[in-house]
């Protein structure tokens, strides 16, 4: 007989490979999404582009370049649409090797008093065709217009709404006719170009496996901290729900299989089938409508009231307030009742149906007939002979239901505003918070894979045959 040890090692290696492939798929998906995790950081005028660029470099997302400009790098230009006769204009043109992820320009604004305008385009353009914004009549769309960057010097050009492209133009205007640029002009242009795909891939995989997840742009916190908060919430809800589903579902399934053809079977199977095919979010909405809005028995959403004691909080409704020894428990449970109930209703349908099928299959086996024939009590045959063997497909389904449950968490957590991983994932996707979204998807996959390993272990214990394969 093969031992459990080698079997587990084999399974563990398989799980690692799976995790690797899944992480690669996650990487490919996020790479295919338009945009980059650092984009929202660049567009935020509060963030220093240098810091963002350094962050991007440390995550293997970008290469940073700095160009220093002096007055000789600029050329005087005339004939710009909308130019003011009292000003002299200077221009500098860049041709970057690739579309930069971000560009920022900085100089001593207290020392050099001129306006700075920027413009960027995919293909090269005659700078005389770019109009100044003061040219008030040129309101037509698609006409290139210089964007005033003067107030944002030091920020990334995304802050003034420019998407940097290969060709980049800087225009300075100095008051006075034939004014010269200051000879001590020092201007730093920083630009950031994406690293090649393989570098991004390798760093992504490395970062994921070392839990180096980066910063959430929206929540302004390290992603690891956010997930450390939220994963337990999801596990609490779905773990509890799954256990309850199986605890209740298996006896019912066994019973109705045993009592084949009765009214109980018809009702149980009918109801189960109905719930089994129901969209989970719809049932969630209906429950919130009935129990939260109409009856006011359960909270509208959220995972706990915590310290809040305002209207609708645990304290206000149940009169068990912070400080009460059972507060934590009551608070969490009160918020969990409805979500749990929804999953139990939906999940149990599947378990009942499966257990029933499994029992029916087992009950057709010859050894059940033998057991019955030799006069064993029905209860013994049912529970010892039949149910135990029918457990095998149930364990498999446990694996699948777990992966479904975590996937389904995305939608149900959204409905119940339950801030677990699923909720976090959706919010991150909606707000383009890619560091957070990527890490959350990785964690979701990891949870599913860990669930698989647990199921494999259980399976190995229950059925020694699988270890030999």
């Amino acid at each position, binding site marked *: 007989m093969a031992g459990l040890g080698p079997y587990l090692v084999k399974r563990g290696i398989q799980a690692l490979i799976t995790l690797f492939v*899944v992480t690669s798929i996650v990487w490919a998906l996020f790479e295919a*999404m338009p945009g980059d995790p650092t984009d929202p950081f660049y567009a935020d005028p509060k963030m220093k582009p240098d810091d963002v660029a350094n962050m991007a470099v440390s995550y293997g997302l970008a290469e940073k370049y700095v160009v220093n400009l002096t007055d000789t790098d600029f050329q005087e230009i005339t004939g710009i649409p909308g130019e003011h006769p009292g000003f002299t204009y200077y221009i500098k043109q860049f041709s970057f090797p690739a579309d930069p992820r971000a560009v920022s320009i900085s100089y001593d604004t207290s020392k050099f008093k001129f306006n700075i305008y920027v413009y960027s385009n995919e293909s090269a353009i005659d700078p005389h065709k770019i109009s100044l914004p003061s040219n*008030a009549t040129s309101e037509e769309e698609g006409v290139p217009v210089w964007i005033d960057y003067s107030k944002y010097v030091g920020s990334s050009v995304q802050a003034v709404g420019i998407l940097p492209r290969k060709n980049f133009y800087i225009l300075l205007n100095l008051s006075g006719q034939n004014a010269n640029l200051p000879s001590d002009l020092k201007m730093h242009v920083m630009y950031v170009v994406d690293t090649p795909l393989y570098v991004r891939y390798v760093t992504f995989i490395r970062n994921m496996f070392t839990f180096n997840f980066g910063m959430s742009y929206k929540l302004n916190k390290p992603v690891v901290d956010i997930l450390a908060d939220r994963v337990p919430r999801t596990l609490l809800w779905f773990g509890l729900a799954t256990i309850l589903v199986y605890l209740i579902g298996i006896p019912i399934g066994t019973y109705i299989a045993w009592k084949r053809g009765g009214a109980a079977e018809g009702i149980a199977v009918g109801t189960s089938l109905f719930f089994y095919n129901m969209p989970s979010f719809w049932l969630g909405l*209906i429950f919130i*409508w009935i129990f939260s809005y109409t009856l006011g028995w359960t909270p509208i959403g959220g995972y706990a009231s915590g310290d809040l004691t305002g209207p609708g909080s645990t304290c206000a409704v149940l009169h068990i307030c912070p400080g009460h020894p059972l507060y934590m428990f009551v608070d969490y449970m009160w918020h969990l009742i409805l979500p749990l109930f929804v999953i139990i209703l939906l999940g149990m349908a599947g378990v009942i149906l499966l257990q029933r099928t499994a029992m029916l*299959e087992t009950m057709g086996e010859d050894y059940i007939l033998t057991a019955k024939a030799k006069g064993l009590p029905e209860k013994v045959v049912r529970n010892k002979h039949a149910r135990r063997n029918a457990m095998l497909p149930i364990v498999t389904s446990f694996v699948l239901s777990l992966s479904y449950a975590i996937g389904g968490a995305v939608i149900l957590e959204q409905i119940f505003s339950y801030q677990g991983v699923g909720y976090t994932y959706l919010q991150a996707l909606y707000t383009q918070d890619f560091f957070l979204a990527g890490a959350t998807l990785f964690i979701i996959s990891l949870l599913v*894979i860990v669930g698989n390993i647990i199921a494999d272990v259980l399976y190995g214990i229950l059925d020694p045959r699988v270890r030999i394969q």
Partner: protein
Amino acid sequence: MVSVSRWQEIERQLKRTAKSWWKLYWASNYGKAGLIIIVIFAIMAIFAPVLTPYTPDFEAPSKDALVTYLYAFHTDEKIDDMIVGYTQLRTASPLGGDWLILNHGHSIEGIYVQNPKIAVPENSSKAQADIAPWEVNEPPITFYLNISTIPGIGSDEVVKDMVFLAQSTSDLNFHYNGENQRSDFAGELVFVTQSHLVIYDMYNFYDQNYSRYKVVSLGFEPTWVTADVTSVGGLTSPVIYSTTYPPTYPARYIMVGNAHSFALFFHYYTYSGDPNLPDIDKCLIQIYPTYSDDVTTVNNYHTFTDRIKMKPLLFYNDNLYTKDQNVIVVPLENSTVLYKGFDEHSQNPFPGPGDLPLVVPSNIASRITATTLSFSLTASPGFYFASQDLGVNPIFLPARDGDNAVIYYVIPRGDIAANLKTINLREGEIDATPQVFKSGNSLVIYTVKYSDAEGDSYLYKLAGNLSAGFTIQPFESNNGTMESIPIKGERVVYNLYVQENNQFFFLTETNKFYLFDLHSYQKSGTPDIIRFSYYHWKTLERNLFPYPSGSTLSKFIFVGSLQGSRYTAKAAAYDIFGAYYCADTNTVGLTLLKGESRLPLPPGRYISGNLYILGTDAQGHDIWTWLVYGSRVAFLVGIMAAFIQVVIGSLYGVLSGFKGGWTDTVLMRFADIMLTLPFLPIILILTSIVGRSIWNIIFVLGIFGWAGISRVIRAQTLSLKNRPFVDAARVAGASGWRIMISHILPNVLPFAFLYMTLGVAGAILSEAALSFLGLGDPQAVSWGQMLSTIQTSGATMYAWWWLLPPGLAITLISLGFYLVGRAFDEILNPRLRKR
């Protein structure tokens, strides 16, 4: 020897199998129930157009969807005229409101009506009965001014005409922001009697100790008074202008006149109760035809031999880069005179409180120039009141050129007569002021022409810009286009386009008030011009405008409009309203023009006669119609996605099982990984990458759902590949591919079909989930989309008629497919059958 071809053989076998299967299938109760459900939905999908009178595009007409309330009251005294005093210029502040100011002859009465506001409980079913759209303070804020109580006014004098100078909110920021400010008692009432011009501060009505008014003796008998469009809020004229900038200079112009004469005054005013306001005597300067800074008696006035046809337009806008565009248009019987240069001081820097009042150059009268145009106006001029962005203020002068209706337009600067351009609308006459709007980079003019020859009025849309000119733009709809919209048998004298409603209101010569809904026209292609009707706010009776029924509309004033869009803006909708009075019944009223949306509508029959069996959604779509049409998308997505899954899964499974060895291991490991992937989170990203169309969703669901099937098919293949018939084929020399395709694949098809039926259910549920999360096809008429929109429109918690049907349909159809699948399962796994 009888040769039986291979195909005949297969055919016969198939028939036999089908027959026995059908018997087995029909023996299963699951199978029966599932098939019945699917057939019902299939009937819905196929006969959708027969099952419902509407299309998914259909939107409940505005008469069903919108409640236009009316609030009215009677007065004891006769009403000679009414104006509206705007106290909070274009702001939605609930503290703001409007004065309804009634001219009773010897007295003036004001009733303050707060900005309409509504307290619809967020999640109620919107029972409307107790909600008044307008709130009159309790006790009501009113004033009553018996004009003979003003020193200097005789008891025989009556109010001939009046105008309200609104306070300027931005002046307030510059000058005064004290505790005594009252938005309701700010503003000035300016009126003329037979022999006097009176400027009367509204603050007098609030504070007994405050006394600020001016009485000017006039050397001629005036019949009208007017003020610049900025000061009056621009809204006594039916012209609406840019709402971007409030006036910034405390410069107001007042013009007093009669049929042949007029005098023009400059008036300084910022905000009532402002302690920095100079003595009112210093605030009024006559600037035309002569300059006088001590205005107690006015003896100089400009006289035309020709008659002044209608009240002049006093156009003043100091927000511009190029300020030289302000103009006064005096419409005469046979010509039109344009005055320029009256606003010279406003080009100076803004004065501080110490410099008050503004110093108007004493030679101002000689600097004012007049241009006489040889045509006579047929209606008051239209204009575009630009904010700084566009920078030009064209004036649109409706006139006649022979038999033709024309609009002359010009930016009033430089040589006006030389720059004048024309738009020709052919035979007819424009009797209503054209409405001018900015749309993108061009201007859009809505104007109504009355054709003498036809006896009908026609609404035209003109678009273009000032340099290239304007052309007639046809009104486009889903069913063709129309050059103009006819208003049959009516002569329109007042034309009002309410941008937020996308609706036109027409007042005719015979005092009928019509509504034309452009949005409905664009949908249907039929230009319905309907009489405007209202609900009485208390009785909820619906009737034709105005109230009370049978009374004659004496005057209609458009009051306020805020941004908002059809059906979606709720609170803002209340700010679009009009005030009116009927002299014959002494009634004053306010009516909503846009009305409050009642969408989503609960099931029932509505005023239009339409029956919405399951009610409507927040856009007015009929739920039953969407439910019926939605089954099409459900079948499409379900069957197509499941088909892709089964094709990939079967081929993959057969290949893996038949090849065995390393191929099998690698393929099955990959299938395991696919099974491990969190399905919903992954397809969420994938659909957002490939785009939100129904075919992309089908594709994504198909690509990600085959792994489970492939495992089962592989297991079947493993058991099949050692069967004698496979060995026989091998011995006969068939290649591996041939064995897979023509021997094994046909034998796993039943299983493939079983999993396809189960896959359909899964795909339908997944599509619903995707749509619900906002990643569905926004154009698709799908059940998931219905559930997504109920969530976004915030109606989830009361619109049960909208929440329940789509979810139930999704449940039932996937149940149907699931049951069919189970029936197949019973055929394939005999042990499941009942013994």
